[in-house]
């Protein structure tokens, strides 16, 4: 199972759920699993950055996930 | 708008041009004469990117009317290196990584040349105050000052 944590600004898409566990072997499957659980969440989550096991990915999609992986959705980071 | 005919010397070459009376030397150098090494950062004399030597004296070319250069001598960044290659100031700026974006560099090199002609062995304070009119936003000045100190040493005590 992959542990998924949502920041406050995305709680509107998860019915207020902050943390869930889903079955997924990569990030694409994770988004599909979350869409199934929270219909309509796909677009916002797909545009969001995510930290996968501590590494920040601005455009996660194909990244593999393992059992025990942690995914934190977060705002995209900019920079100067 | 009648243009004025001006004959002057730029980097040792006699140059003739036509300009409007209100045009700055900077404008004429960059637009008319294609000498774009002299940069415009403010056009109000506050940044030093347009520094040139006028009869050997350091000035902002944005605050000199082009017509005023009649019969005078102008030195720009394009006139600092020679056939032998880079001027030691230019070499030291490179060796010390004294430039990041490089837009202020031509002005700083011209200003350093005039500094070392007046003060061949300047202390750090003298360097900092002499160059205070040359804004640099990238380096925090540290490496620029070190480059100037190093070139002063090299010119004063040639190996």
């Amino acid at each position, binding site marked *: 199972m992959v542990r998924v944590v949502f920041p406050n600004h995305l709680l509107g898409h998860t019915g207020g759920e902050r943390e869930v566990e889903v079955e997924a072997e990569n990030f694409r499957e994770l988004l599909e699993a979350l869409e199934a659980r929270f219909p309509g969440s796909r677009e916002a989550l797909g545009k969001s950055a995510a930290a996968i096991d501590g590494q920040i990915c601005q455009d996660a999609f194909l990244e593999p996930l393992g059992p025990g992986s942690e995914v934190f959705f977060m705002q995209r980071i900019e920079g100067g | 708008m009648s243009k004025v005919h001006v004959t002057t010397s730029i980097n040792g070459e006699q140059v003739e041009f036509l300009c409007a*009376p209100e045009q700055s030397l900077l404008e004429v150098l960059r637009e008319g004469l294609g000498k774009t090494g002299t940069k415009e950062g403010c056009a109000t*004399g506050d940044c030093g990117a347009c520094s040139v030597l006028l009869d050997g004296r350091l000035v902002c070319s944005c*605050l000199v*009317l082009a017509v005023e250069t009649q019969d005078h001598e102008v030195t720009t960044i394009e006139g600092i290196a020679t056939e032998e290659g880079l001027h030691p100031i230019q070499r030291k700026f490179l060796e010390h990584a004294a430039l990041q974006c490089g837009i202020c560099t031509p002005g700083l090199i011209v200003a350093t040349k005039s500094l070392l002609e007046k003060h061949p062995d300047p202390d750090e304070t003298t360097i900092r*105050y*002499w160059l205070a009119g040359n804004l640099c936003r990238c380096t925090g000045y540290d490496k620029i000052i070190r480059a100037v100190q190093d070139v002063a040493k090299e010119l004063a005590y040639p190996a």
Partner: protein
Amino acid sequence: MGAFAYVAPTSVDEVLTVLSEHANLGKRAQVLAGGTDLLVQMRSIDREARTIIDIKKLAETNRLTISDEAVFIGAAIPSAELNENEALVNLLPGLLEAADLIGSTQIQGRATLGGNLCNASPAGDTIPAMIAVGAVCRIAGSGGIRELPVEEFCTGVGTNTLAPDEFLLGLEIKRPPPGSGSAYLRFTPRTEMDIAVAGCGVAVTLDAGGTCTAARVGIGAVAPRPLLVPAAAEALIGTKLDDAALAAAGEACSAAASPITDKRGTDVYRRKVVGVLCRRAGAIARDRAQAQAMKD
């Protein structure tokens, strides 16, 4: 926009002729010395076309003489050149250090004392220093030459007493007697490349016993025009320029100030700091006077 024109006369009479012609025809003419204020203004606040009269080719505006009686500084000499003259720096250290504070090395390569005065900015650094050393303006006009104490030259923010057919030839300063010293200090947030938030020039003369026999104090950036502060001078004359006397002079400067609040500082701040500057400049002027007395 009409058309600009540029002339560079070689005699005072030629300058006066161009000025008079323009005045008579209602056309605009403006004298150019170093141009470090003029060119900036021409591109921003005052773009109107005019005839620019370059006065850098005149003998009189380039004259620098130091005699036993007086010093004459032509209106077109750049401040960098003045500061290269050791005799001048020794004689009028306050005025020359003020000139050395204007803008960058680049600016000082062009900017002139005459231009700084004619620009009549309340914050012009050399003006309080000129006031302190009692400089007199020498002005050429169609009626001949007239002289005017520098503290009477500026009439307000950016305005001066020059008539349309007049221009400034230079400044005459009586040679300071033995035992004299002068200093100028200004306050700016940066060390360089800044406009004075407050400025103060002090000139003093000491007798053999170290008592102040003459003093003048000028302040800048704290009123619509630079001011002579007689009350500050009175606080100094007759004293040994001790801390109390300097503090009193500083208070007189603060009292004489009528500053505004703007982007460069608040009125309260300026009023306080001009007093501090007077005190500090007074101490430097005193030390210089003492050092000079020792030399003589």
